[in-house]
């Protein structure tokens, strides 16, 4: 029993990230509303960030800010005591990219709405064919 729990704990993060990613992907593929797709896109991106942050997690490690006293010489730092900071750095970048993409996508959606007065893809397509 404890073995199963241990496995679940050990991989649960990864499973959830896969679920989230698939939710986002599903929304992007099947939803016809442009903004809904954008929401899906953001969920998708956030899921990947979750994945990376999970890589960085370290049992028994603390947040990656070194304890030190001002002025005093700090003691030797051991890697095992701190969480892996590299994924965090990467994910800061990824979050920024996500918000940048979000801005662009929303701007496009607004332009499309101004032109066709709807956000539903099928309605837009029928309007393009109609005109």
């Amino acid at each position, binding site marked *: 029993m404890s073995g199963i729990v241990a496995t679940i*704990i050990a991989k*649960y*993060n990864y499973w*959830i990230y896969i*679920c*989230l990613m698939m*939710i*986002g992907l*599903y*929304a992007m593929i*099947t*939803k*016809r*509303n442009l*903004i*809904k797709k954008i*929401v*899906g896109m*953001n*969920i998708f991106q*956030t899921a990947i*960030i*979750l994945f990376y*942050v*999970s890589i*960085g*997690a*370290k*049992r028994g*490690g*603390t*947040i*990656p*800010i070194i304890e030190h006293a001002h002025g005093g010489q700090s003691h030797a730092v051991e890697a095992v005591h701190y*969480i892996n900071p590299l*994924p*965090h750095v990467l*994910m*800061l970048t990824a*979050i*920024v990219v*996500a*918000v940048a993409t*979000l*801005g662009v996508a*929303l701007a496009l*959606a*607004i332009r499309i*709405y101004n032109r066709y007065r*709807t*956000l*539903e893809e099928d309605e837009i397509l029928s309007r393009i064919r109609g005109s």
Partner: protein
Amino acid sequence: MIWELDMAILTLVLFCAVGAITVKDLLGAAILFGAYSFMMCLLWAIMGAVDVAFTEASVGAGVSTVFFVAAVFRTTRRTKD
């Protein structure tokens, strides 16, 4: 890291995500997306990624949601799915 808390929030995140894409109102979707982001932020804080959590709190739950709301305000709340 407290793994029970971690798992509980992970499950909540899942609900928020499903909610955000199924709700039939774009403003609702935007707000649920905000909640989703905030849950994520909590999750990362638990995992010790404080900087990422901070960023997600200000960007994902904050500015992104504002952008969404602004865009929905400029377009329409109506959605068919």
